[in-house]
């Protein structure tokens, strides 16, 4: 008997993937050459599963600011901002985020995961109620578990179901806090935020929107879904991450709520962890500046996303409901997802496999994420590999039929 026996069935599945040499959960790139290219051994790999939406990871200015910061302030902060002090960069990054969103307050966390865990566990007290979309990210569910509020799950993207659950709570004491996401990371669908905002107003609740996958992607200035939907005034808290469109690591929350700063000495995931290193902070600041100054990146990203989504749809793949930079092909079962993924990687294309319970409705997904840094010919190359593997696995119609259907 071993302490880890409880994971026996998971172990067996994992070992099965290892022995078939098709394990998507332990891929290692020997070199990374650019936002869209890497090497595994001698093989060139086209990256289409890295959430690097704006392709800023190799931007010369981003790298230069990070190098300056590490030379000036050292490699790490070696402590928490509460116990060991903040650096100038932390404060500047918070001011830049508040300015970008037009809000009075911003708080930076060491990861996006911690931003959700830290905000939700602190905002919702023992007598309060958290209402979470069924498809919210694990970090939102974990934040709910770390706090002491009563947690209710409502049907994905269903404002009527949310309203029913708020009605059931009736005049139960405590505040009600609704949490949804801008773009959902598994199927790339966005929330009907205008309708959620209306429900929020009707019931006097608070609204938190996680824009992790929509920052720099949606909205006229890239602020995300709240901006795109024109409901920023109804959103009390925006949570986001530096690890996707900003190409670094870290998380944040912005708000106009009076007294927001007290959360710095309330939120355990903020207090009891080391703060972001100066180089990471400086890189995020520069990436945010570029996100604001170069709207062309957003346009290129969405052009690529549409080209890729439309291309896969035309080939006959079953996709998520809307074209966004996250594009998932729905596979018939996990085995097909592994096989498809592995054949793509053998052909030099890196994507992601997503499986239940991380996916909604028990779906097995072959997930891609498109970048502004992809060239149209890289997108087309990926599409031709999907066509080839999809046809040879019998998942889509043969070429001639597909052409006729498309014509």
């Amino acid at each position: 008997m071993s302490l880890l026996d409880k994971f026996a069935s998971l172990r067996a599945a994992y070992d099965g993937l290892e022995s078939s040499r098709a394990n998507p959960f332990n891929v290692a790139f020997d070199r990374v050459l650019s936002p869209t290219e890497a090497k595994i051994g001698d093989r060139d790999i086209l990256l289409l599963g890295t959430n690097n939406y704006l392709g800023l990871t190799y931007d010369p200015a981003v790298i230069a600011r990070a190098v300056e910061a590490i030379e000036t302030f050292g490699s790490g902060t070696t402590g928490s901002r509460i116990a060991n002090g903040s650096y100038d960069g932390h404060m500047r990054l918070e001011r830049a985020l508040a300015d970008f969103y037009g809000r009075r307050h911003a708080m930076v966390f060491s990861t996006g995961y911690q931003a959700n865990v830290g905000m939700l566990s602190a905002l919702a007290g023992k007598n309060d109620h958290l209402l979470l979309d069924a498809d919210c990210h694990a970090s939102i569910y974990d934040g709910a578990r770390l706090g002491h509020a009563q947690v209710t799950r409502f049907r994905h993207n269903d404002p009527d179901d949310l309203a029913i659950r708020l009605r059931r709570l009736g005049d139960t004491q405590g505040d009600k806090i609704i949490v949804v996401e801008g773009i959902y990371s598994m199927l790339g669908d966005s929330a009907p935020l205008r309708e959620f905002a209306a429900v929020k107003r009707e019931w006097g609740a608070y609204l938190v929107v996680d824009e992790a996958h929509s920052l720099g992607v949606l909205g006229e200035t890239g602020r995300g879904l709240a901006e795109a939907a024109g409901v920023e005034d109804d959103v009390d808290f925006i949570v986001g991450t530096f690890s996707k469109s900003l190409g670094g690591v870290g998380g944040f929350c912005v708000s106009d709520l009076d007294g927001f700063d007290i959360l710095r000495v309330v939120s355990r995931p903020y207090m009891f962890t080391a703060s972001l290193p100066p180089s990471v902070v400086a890189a995020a600041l520069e990436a945010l500046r570029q996100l604001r100054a170069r709207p062309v990146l957003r346009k290129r990203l969405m052009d690529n996303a549409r080209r890729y989504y439309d291309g896969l749809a035309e080939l006959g793949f079953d996709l998520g409901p809307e074209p966004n930079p996250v594009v998932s092909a729905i596979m018939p079962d996990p085995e097909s997802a592994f096989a498809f993924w592995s054949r793509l990687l053998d052909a030099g294309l890196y994507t992601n496999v997503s499986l239940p319970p991380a996916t909604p409705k028990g779906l097995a997904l072959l997930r891609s994420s498109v970048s502004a840094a992809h060239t149209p010919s890289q997108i087309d190359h990926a599409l031709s590999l999907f066509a080839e593997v999809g046809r040879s696995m019998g998942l889509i119609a043969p070429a001639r039929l597909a052409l006729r259907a498309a014509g």
Partner: protein
Amino acid sequence: MNTSIGDIRQIVFDTLRPSLQRPVPLSDATNIVNDLGLDSVAMMDFVMEIENRLDISVPLDRIAEIESLGDLVRTLRELKGVP
């Protein structure tokens, strides 16, 4: 408010049966994870199906405590206020 505990058990079993991949005899002793093979999200989805039929919401901490179908029926009964 005329729901009886027998009705609740019936609703649970009826909701569950169509979603099972193979027929499993259902009773209060049926373990939801081991006997039915539901993962954490499938379990929450299954409870969601029942919630609207009974017009109740089951908080997640209560779902986390449920191991058997009997546990689920008991939880639903308490939340529904059935004696």
